[in-house]
């Protein structure tokens, strides 16, 4: 087996999602190479080379890969694919944008969001918002999959010094242009990496009321999330959305406030270790998955919670 893991990074830092993806690759066994592309990525490349058990680090450093768009990144990946039995990327928006395009160029199917590696050809992935698990098998020259990062622990950095191979192929992007990023600048931990997440739903009533959640989050060092209903209602930004079509989280503690517990929300958080639900409606489905439920008015209980922490 030889596996290529595509490294996700934000210019200076390696995305932790990649570390979980490498763990999934290790469960297949065999030689693992990493591919990094971008501009000014030497520090990320140095970090990646230290990861335990990495064979080779392929580095494509050029201005044309700066924006990491799928169109030309896939052209770079296409000729490399024949060297690998598997190509993995994290099931982040970046990985999900990239990998299906590569799969189609290679004329192979792609598996989305695998949560378990059974053997080199057999994997488990959730379908129907996680209400069913599909055990799937495929025989392809190269198997492409995105990896749900909450399902695999992060691999450790070590003293490894993986061999670095520079790729100097330059593929300009002819037909899509990067214009701007509008990234959230939160001091709080990132949702998918946080140990504690506190999320608000439609019951929050307004975007302003999210400050009640923020206050509790600051006491706990927690990330703040939102249900789709809250995003739909304009209370919270889309990048805060936890659910089937938003982010998948599995923190040590998940606190759902004013969230009814629609199927699509449960899909994004039901693998959390401990779930707390605070809701006025005792019949809300969220209580069926909660370890601790508190039937109460969130406008009273959130300030109390903030005080007690």
């Amino acid at each position: 087996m030889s596996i290529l893991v595509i490294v996700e990074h934000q210019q200076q830092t390696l995305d932790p999602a990649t570390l979980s993806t490498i763990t999934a690759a290790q469960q297949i066994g065999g030689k693992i190479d990493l591919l990094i592309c971008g501009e000014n990525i030497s520090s990320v490349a140095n970090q990646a080379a230290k990861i335990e058990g990495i064979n080779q680090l392929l580095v494509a450093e050029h201005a044309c890969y700066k924006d990491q768009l799928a169109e030309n990144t896939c052209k770079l990946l296409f000729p490399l694919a024949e060297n690998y039995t598997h190509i993995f990327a994290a099931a982040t928006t970046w990985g999900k944008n990239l990998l299906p395009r590569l799969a189609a160029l290679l004329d192979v199917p792609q598996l989305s969001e695998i949560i378990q590696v059974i053997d080199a050809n057999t994997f488990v992935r959730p379908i129907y918002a996680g209400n069913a698990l599909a055990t799937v098998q495929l025989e392809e020259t190269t198997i492409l999959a995105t990896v749900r990062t909450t399902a695999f622990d992060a691999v450790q950095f070590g003293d490894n010094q993986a061999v670095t191979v520079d790729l100097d192929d330059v593929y300009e992007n002819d037909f899509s242009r990067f214009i701007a990023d509008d990234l959230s600048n939160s001091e709080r931990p990132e949702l998918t990496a946080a140990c504690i997440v506190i999320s608000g739903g439609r019951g929050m009533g307004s975007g302003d009321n999210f400050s009640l959640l923020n206050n509790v989050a600051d006491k706990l060092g927690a990330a703040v999330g939102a249900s789709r209903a809250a995003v739909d209602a304009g209370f919270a930004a889309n990048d805060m959305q936890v659910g089937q079509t938003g982010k998948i989280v599995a923190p040590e503690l998940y606190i759902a406030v004013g969230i009814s517990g629609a199927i699509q929300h449960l899909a994004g958080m039901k693998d959390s270790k401990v779930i707390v639900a605070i809701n006025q409606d005792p019949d809300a489905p969220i209580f069926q998955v909660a370890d601790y439920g508190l039937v109460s008015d969130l406008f009273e209980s959130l300030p109390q919670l903030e005080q007690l922490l």
Partner: protein
Amino acid sequence: MKILVAVKRVVDANIKVRVLADETGIDMNDTKMALNPFCEIAVEEAIRLKESGSASEVIVVSIGTEKSQEQLRTALALGADRAILLQTNEIMEPLSVAKLLAKLVQEEQPELVILGKQSIDSDNNQTAQMLAALTGRPQGTFISQLSVDDCEIHITREVDNGLQKLSLQLPAVVSADLRLNEPRFASLPSIMKAKRKPIDRRSAEDFGIDLSPRIKHLKITTPEERKSGQLVTSVTELVAKLKLEAEVI
């Protein structure tokens, strides 16, 4: 500008599906079906582009059994001009869907293809990216904003850490995210009118593409259920339990 929108018939979003006891699939008996929510957003966006004068024609296509015509009628009632149904009994994988759509793109030559980002049954999130690859065109995935400017579109993408703005040369393929728009409800007159709009039925097998599934489903199982928890009566009790019992804070 001609716009092609592909739509999928899926289990209604509010239904919690049940796995069959023999683990071969999902119980689809009497299950309420609907237009995939993201496909509905894609249709709405195409219609808005037509209403604003940016688009001249909106064509909807679905791939599946005869029953998928119900979802095409829904799209026609929302305002699409005509529909194409590629009939097949095969379970369609995203790669096969993308190959069929690529053939239609060749025939119809739309400047813009809008898809939903993901269907809520198989949860793949692949078809738009694959279609863009097969047609050699740029892709704008998970978009929450779209504007047309001559031979380019400007899009805003919903990404993990915020928003990303790109410009794509037309023709292009985009996939709709949740906040792109809020789909309208079809009015009764438009539902009636939709019944007279044409649906062109064709066999998916006639396109000369091997549609047989390449991913084998060994079994479909129910995930482990969470054990039911306990109700607490006060915030004080909650904090105590989290500290002493669960030991998470």
